[in-house]
């Protein structure tokens, strides 16, 4: 283990500090090449599974061993994911660390894994959030099952993010249902059984048609010269030829599954229940990682596999994303239950991710990926804090809480930090992703961006209002005994605090790695969809500080987004657009400073 960790540390430091030409980076890359025998990506999937197996074999009476095994497994997997981040080749937009093994030969199903800049951070997010969730929360009973299911869940999430075979992807995607079902049903609160059943059936229903769509795609597009069948993602994406209407139909099959998972309005109703009743670790992983299965799916299995259908469906999904942002914000403001409020805020934040993806330009998609990472970290941290709160007060009712800031200032401080990040205050992680999404959407569909921006205001409204009710004022009798956060509790949050600040101030290292993959994805879409060019309605250069007037002229000529006539009025360009650009200009430079 020493080798990888050292290499990781040096590699990470080097990459964060400098550009890729640093000597240390080469060293770490060479180190990875020097150990070709170690299958890093399969290890990400199988380490948790191995841990689950071990936990299953340890007798139920040894609760401390279960916890230790789960934590060690999760930490080792996390270290693997960070090592992967360190040795990841920033400049390569394609899939790296690809491993392929035959699985079901006659159907050409293979165990293919690989990561690109987009999935890399999903893997890292999984690798960070799971150990933290394990550290931060303990079950009150049945430790064995709890740790077993959490490790299985980790394996499932890793599987989804590294899979490059449709069959493997679907297996991993579905596998995540079972552990979370048990986590909610057995270790949850309140109406846990109802919430668990709803979660399971809703998401299973969503993905039922995806299996049919996958098989359809594999038989139609996967057929090579021999008329066979293939589940190979890259092969289907590049060689598959299916008629436009069929592709759209199949896309709907995939999109439904992802839309439920994200969740996209109006398919979100399972989420508040599942979030609210889930145990803390379940909520953290659900919000932090599992929701990203949907948005990641939209990018990898929507945009990449069905470029034409994605362009076709983009207006609808953009609209649903915008509705989700507003709806989630309004409903969150109405909540009496603090956990439910955070859950509804997830609906709003994930709406940004969806909008970013279907802005179909690099700003939008990069922003969307960033927003996934940030939302995972922020909401994960908020749920951990809420878990601490529940442990002290055994309630999430806003009305029953008051004046906590007085008795537990550090706790309140931490909550403030993550709350502000969630609102999207500049300088903290939440801002960067949402801003890039807004820029991307603005370029593609102006008015949608206007609507979405209103969601940011709503976020401030519901978050600050709730904060005011819970933390301000005088603590009543019941809240006087609210214990301050302990060091043991604060430690798991420390990496999240660091990340929230770091990503808010300096997101460049992340964007650098996402950018090449997103660029190549957009190239792929442009190549596959005749007449489609990336909607950069007013030309990226002007928005990032170029000459304003000249840019407007260019913008009109280049603004020929295929199939997007719906927002013709907004995209017409012209002098009336000057003002918003002028506002945007300065801010963009500030934020993405290093990236331009």
């Amino acid at each position, binding site marked *: 283990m020493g080798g990888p960790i050292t290499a990781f540390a040096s590699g990470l430091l080097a990459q964060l500090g400098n550009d890729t030409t640093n000597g240390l980076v080469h060293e770490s890359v060479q180190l990875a090449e020097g150990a070709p025998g170690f299958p890093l990506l399969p290890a990400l999937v199988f380490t948790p599974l191995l841990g689950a197996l071990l936990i299953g074999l340890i007798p*139920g009476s040894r609760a401390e061993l279960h916890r230790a095994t789960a934590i060690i497994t999760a930490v080792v997997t996390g270290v693997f994911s960070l090592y992967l981040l360190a040795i990841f080749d920033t400049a390569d937009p394609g899939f790296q660390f690809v491993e392929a093994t035959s699985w079901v*030969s006659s159907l050409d199903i293979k165990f293919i894994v690989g990561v690109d800049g987009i999935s890399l951070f999903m893997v890292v997010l999984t690798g960070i959030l799971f150990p933290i969730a394990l550290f931060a929360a303990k079950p009150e009973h049945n430790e064995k099952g709890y740790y077993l299911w959490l490790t299985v869940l980790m394996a499932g999430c890793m599987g989804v993010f590294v899979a490059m075979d449709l069959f493997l992807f679907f*297996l991993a995607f*579905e596998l995540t249902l079972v552990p979370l079902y048990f986590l909610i049903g057995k270790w949850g609160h309140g109406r846990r059984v109802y919430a668990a059943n709803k979660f399971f*059936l809703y998401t299973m229903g969503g993905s039922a048609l995806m299996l*049919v769509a996958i*098989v359809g795609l594999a038989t139609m597009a996967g057929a090579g010269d021999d008329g066979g069948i293939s589940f190979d993602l890259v092969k289907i994406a590049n060689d598959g030829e299916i008629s436009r209407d069929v592709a759209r139909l199949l896309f709907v099959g995939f999109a439904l599954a992802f839309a439920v998972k994200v969740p996209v309005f109006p398919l979100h109703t399972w989420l508040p229940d599942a979030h609210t009743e889930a145990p803390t670790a379940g909520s953290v992983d659900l919000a932090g990682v599992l929701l990203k299965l949907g948005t990641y799916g939209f990018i990898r299995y929507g945009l990449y596999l069905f470029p034409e259908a994605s362009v076709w469906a983009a207006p609808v999904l953009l609209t649903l994303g915008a509705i989700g942002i507003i709806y989630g914000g309004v409903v969150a403001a109405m909540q009496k239950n603090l956990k439910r409020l955070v859950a509804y805020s997830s609906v709003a934040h994930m709406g940004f991710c969806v909008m970013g993806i279907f802005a179909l330009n690099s700003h939008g998609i990069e922003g969307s990926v960033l927003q996934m990472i940030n939302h995972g970290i922020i909401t994960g941290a908020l749920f951990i804090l809420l878990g601490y709160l529940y442990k002290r007060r055994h309630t999430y009712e806003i009305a029953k809480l008051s004046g906590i800031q007085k008795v537990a200032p550090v706790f309140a401080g931490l909550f403030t930090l993550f709350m502000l990040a969630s609102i999207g205050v500049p300088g903290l992680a939440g801002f960067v992703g949402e801003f890039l999404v807004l820029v991307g959407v603005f370029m593609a569909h102006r008015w949608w961006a206007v609507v979405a921006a209103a969601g940011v205001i709503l976020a401030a409204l519901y978050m600050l209002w709730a904060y005011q009710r819970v933390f301000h004022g005088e603590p009543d009798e019941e809240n006087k005994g609210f214990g301050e956060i302990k060091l043991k509790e604060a430690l798991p949050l420390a990496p999240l605090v660091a990340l929230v600040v770091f990503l808010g101030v300096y997101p460049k290292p992340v964007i650098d790695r996402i950018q090449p993959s997103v660029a190549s994805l957009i190239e792929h879409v442009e190549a596959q969809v005749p007449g489609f060019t990336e909607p950069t309605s007013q030309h990226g250069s002007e928005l990032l500080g170029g000459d304003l007037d000249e840019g407007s002229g260019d913008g009109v000529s280049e603004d020929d987004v295929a199939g997007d006539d719906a927002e013709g009025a907004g995209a017409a360009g012209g002098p009336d657009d000057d003002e918003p650009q002028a506002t945007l200009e300065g801010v963009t430079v500030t934020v993405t400073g290093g990236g331009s």
Partner: protein
Amino acid sequence: MELFPSDAVFTPDVSWVALWPMVVMALGGLLLLTISSLGKGRIPRPFYALWAVLTSVGSFITAIPLWAQVHGWEDAVLWYDPEVDPTGPFSTVGGVIAADGFSVFLTMLIAVSMVAVVLVIEAYLDREQDRFPEMFALTMFAALGGMVMVSANDLIVLLLGLETLSVAAYVLAAMDLRRVQSQEAGFKYFVLGAFSSAFFLYGIAFIYGATGGTGLVHITDFLAANVLLGSSGLMLLLGLGLLIVGFAFKVALVPFHSWSPDVYDGTPSPLVTFMSSVVKVAAFAGMLRVLVMAFESAGADWRPVIQGLAVLSLVGGALGAIVQSNVKRLLAYSSISHAGFILLGVEAASDVGTAAVVIYLTAYSALVIGSFTVVTLVARSGDRLHTLTDYQGLGRTSPLVAGLFTFFLLAQAGVPFTAGFYAKFSAVIAAVDAGTAWLAAVAMLSAVIAAYLYLRLVVTMWFVDPAAETDTSHVGVPAAAGIALAGCAAAVLWIGIFPNTLTDWAERSVPAVVQPAPPNLVESGDEADADVEFEVGPDGMPGMPGPMPGEMDFGELDLESLGIDPAELEAMLEGGDLGFDVDVEFEDPPG
């Protein structure tokens, strides 16, 4: 003048290799009955169980060289020697028994299922302190019927197998003398089963009328060569419809399913493992061979019917299960829903579909045997605790049994890395491949409804505290049942994680249109100087038993060793007074 000398006897060629699995099963059952009646209770019961297990294993082993033979392996396997034995699929006993990948694989599946079933029965009898060696014997006879059904290449033989299977199953259903529901189940099963057999037989009669034969190969060839119009076409459709009704009864498809929840409920629980595995396998095998192989060219007629039955069964089974409070009835409805899934493979009418059916049947057998073994154990002494209330808090009182049951249930729901998922996946592939993706979509959506009923059971076991009337005693796992459970769980996991092997086997398990071997007229001689090739037309020929199925190619005959003068034959042929069509081609023309 006789064409053939009277001492040339036409006996159907019997290839015992193809019959060994059945013979072993039949002999094992008969001997068991004999021994038990001679022993008169002096023989300990485990002996019978061991005997039944060994018979099943023996039946399985005798199928192995047959598997090698039909696949034309080039290495000797057990007593199969490629140098001597014919290779490839073949038929025997005058073409009524087929030996192809399909029949051999399903025979093996029945034999393996039997091992698990016998073990569960033994665990049950041990708990109930009953003797009943008949239970073993009857399951063995029923399994024999099943083996005949999967190999039947003739509608009449299929009916024979079906009756052998069913009559034994009727008695098995009524086996529990202490519970009146058991007798009711047996009676209900018998009456409705007799109905379905009647439908089936009536269907055979119509098909005979339309095509002039009952052999599946004959029907295949006849339908390929002829277009039936008017009353003949109607007769064929009627026959086909009645056959489908008969099959639908046997496998319990909506709307012919109403007997199955009652029968599952009443039948002693260990025997439900048999009914839901072996009986289903045999009935589906028969259905597939008849519809997909023999009536391939009539696909446009029967495929919509099967599609309709599939939709009804999928949705009806899933919806029917939701309102049940009895676990056995609930699983009965779930098996109706599974039957709908299997129909996706039948309906596809392709090799992919057949492979899907084989995979589904294999996975499903492991799943239901495992599930009903748990039901048997939880029912406790007297086989009486079957309501959802009796399962409350099982996760706490008996975590092992509850855990296994949960595993089997989730697998039935189609959770990844289990056999249940892979089976559904195969069925979806078959449906999509056949251009009926809509049916696959219906199936997957109904699987979500069905998932709810499995979740209900899971919730009951793990998330609900035991009610006051719930028996909270620990559910022990006897060794015999433990072996069966472990085997089923291992199979479910193995198929789920490494489906390659099963897929490979399933793709080899395709029914073949196997022409009957030529009657043993003579061994082809080395010094043949005047060989002829015969083709006998559909009207048959004198001296042969029954109408000959289809056109027959006798291959090359050595006329001299038959005592036929080539010149005389030539003259007869030219005279045209043979009374039947014959097409002779002289290799070495006389004169």
